[in-house]
């Protein structure tokens, strides 16, 4: 108890000193400080974006890069495939099959010629034509990697069952409780004993996929798949499609003609319920996207603060904060996978529920 009381003034003092020194630094290096802040801000934004090359880190003030280029696949009056090294990290215009392309804020735009420029409209939005882009980006590479890891891990687990007469071995021992958790705590309570089986493949895959991908996002390689709206939209869309196509008579009846309420209410409720079917997966999409993006932004900002403070106290406090937040993000990685799976299971359960009690 005494220890706690003693701790509080010390913390307060430390915070005070931090802010004071922060203010002092700000005054002293106003110019360079704001430069650093802008740089960090840009770095974070860049980090959150997908990219066309597999860049592990840059050095010499971002002029030299360590990594490798990835193939760019475009559909622009015919298939065009070329290496992203042609962009030279966004500095040059790439030529492919008589057309010219340039990178702008992490997106490929078509430009007129070898010296073509991006024409910026309102709010820095490029008005140039965008070709259909099916490039193997960094995120696609990571998705493929997770694909390979998961396939390798779980097919090996399945084989170990066969070899050991129905008992898991090695990684299977660790993974089996998680698989069983998804079955017993997520699928069966939400969907029901009778109907859960056909949804198990999707629920297990989505759970492990989101989890592993989130964990990869926390590694220093710095790849975040789930902070791309395209990825979460894809997952939410699959959940929506499965829900819609497995909806039974009762499910649709509860949407279009809610039993047990007066007729005017039924008419009012129908559009609300119909909208609800779309809002549910939409929330699923936003939740996963926002949680991971926010986590990354906050974590990277705090790491950036280390460089802004540039003194032993502020930097070490930022480090401590970043460390704690990193642990929290580790939890969030699993939690978001769990929430996505539980809610998907819940929606499937709603779609197949038999309303015997009515």
């Amino acid at each position, binding site marked *: 108890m005494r220890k706690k009381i003693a701790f509080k003034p010390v913390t307060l003092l430390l915070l005070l000193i931090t802010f004071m020194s922060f203010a002092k630094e700000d005054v002293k290096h106003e110019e360079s400080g704001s430069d650093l802040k802008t740089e960090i801000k840009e770095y974070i934004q860049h980090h959150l974006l997908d990219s066309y090359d597999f860049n592990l880190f840059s050095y010499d003030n971002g002029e030299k890069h360590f990594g490798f280029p990835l193939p760019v696949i475009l559909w622009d009056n015919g298939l065009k495939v070329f290496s992203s090294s042609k962009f030279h990290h966004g500095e040059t215009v790439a030529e492919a099959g008589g057309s010219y392309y340039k990178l702008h804020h992490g997106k490929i735009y078509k430009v007129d010629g070898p010296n073509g420029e991006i024409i910026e409209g309102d709010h820095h939005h490029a008005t140039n034509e965008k070709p259909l882009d099916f490039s193997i*980006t960094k995120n696609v590479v990571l998705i493929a990697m997770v694909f390979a890891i998961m396939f390798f891990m779980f097919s090996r687990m399945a084989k170990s069952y066969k070899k050991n007469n129905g008992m898991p071995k090695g990684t299977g021992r660790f993974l089996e409780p998680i*698989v069983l958790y998804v079955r017993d705590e997520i699928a069966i309570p939400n969907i029901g004993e009778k109907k859960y089986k056909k949804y198990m493949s999707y629920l297990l895959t989505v759970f492990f996929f989101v989890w592993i991908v989130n964990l990869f996002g926390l590694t220093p390689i710095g790849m975040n798949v789930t902070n791309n*709206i395209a990825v979460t939209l894809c997952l939410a869309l699959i959940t929506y499609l499965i829900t819609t196509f497995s909806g039974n008579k009762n499910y649709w009846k509860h949407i279009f003609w809610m039993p047990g309420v007066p007729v005017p209410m039924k008419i009012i409720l129908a559009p609300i319920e119909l909208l609800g079917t779309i809002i549910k997966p939409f929330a699923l999409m936003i939740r996963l996207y926002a949680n991971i993006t926010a986590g990354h932004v906050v974590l990277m900002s705090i790491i950036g603060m280390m460089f802004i403070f540039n003194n032993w106290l502020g930097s070490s406090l930022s480090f401590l904060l970043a460390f704690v937040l990193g642990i929290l993000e580790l939890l969030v990685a699993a939690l978001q996978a769990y929430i996505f799976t539980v809610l998907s299971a819940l929606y499937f359960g709603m779609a197949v529920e038999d309303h015997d009690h009515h």
Partner: protein
Amino acid sequence: MEELFGGFSLGLFFWQAVLFLALVFLLKKFAWKPILDSVNNREEGIKNALEAAENAKKEMENLQADNQKLLKEARAEREAMLKEARDIKNKMIEDAKEEANEAAAKLMAQAQATIQTEKKAAILELKSQVASLSIEIAEKVVQDELSNKGKQEKLVESMLGEATLN
């Protein structure tokens, strides 16, 4: 919202959809189905084994109850048999006693009868012996008396003398 969907990339969506769906189907075939089947089989096996054990236990209990019942019955039977045996024994002893008594009484009676006859015969024999003895004595006495003339005469005289008195 614009920021949100400004970051949307059709290419990434396409690859995610393709890879993810492929992953779902591949894992379904090569991982989830075998894993869940194995787990189900194992769980079923454990459930069955537990049920079998429970049944065996119940059977054991039944068997024990049967044994107890049999033991009880056997004990009761033994008890009954012992009781019967005791009764029979008692009855036999009773009977034997009675018979013995009867036989003894009969024997007594017989013995008494024999004794009576023997006694009679003995008395008769005694009588005859006494008679013969008396005759013999008398004979000897007479002989002795007769061998002495003087005594004979004296006797006769005394006898006579007595006779005349009558």
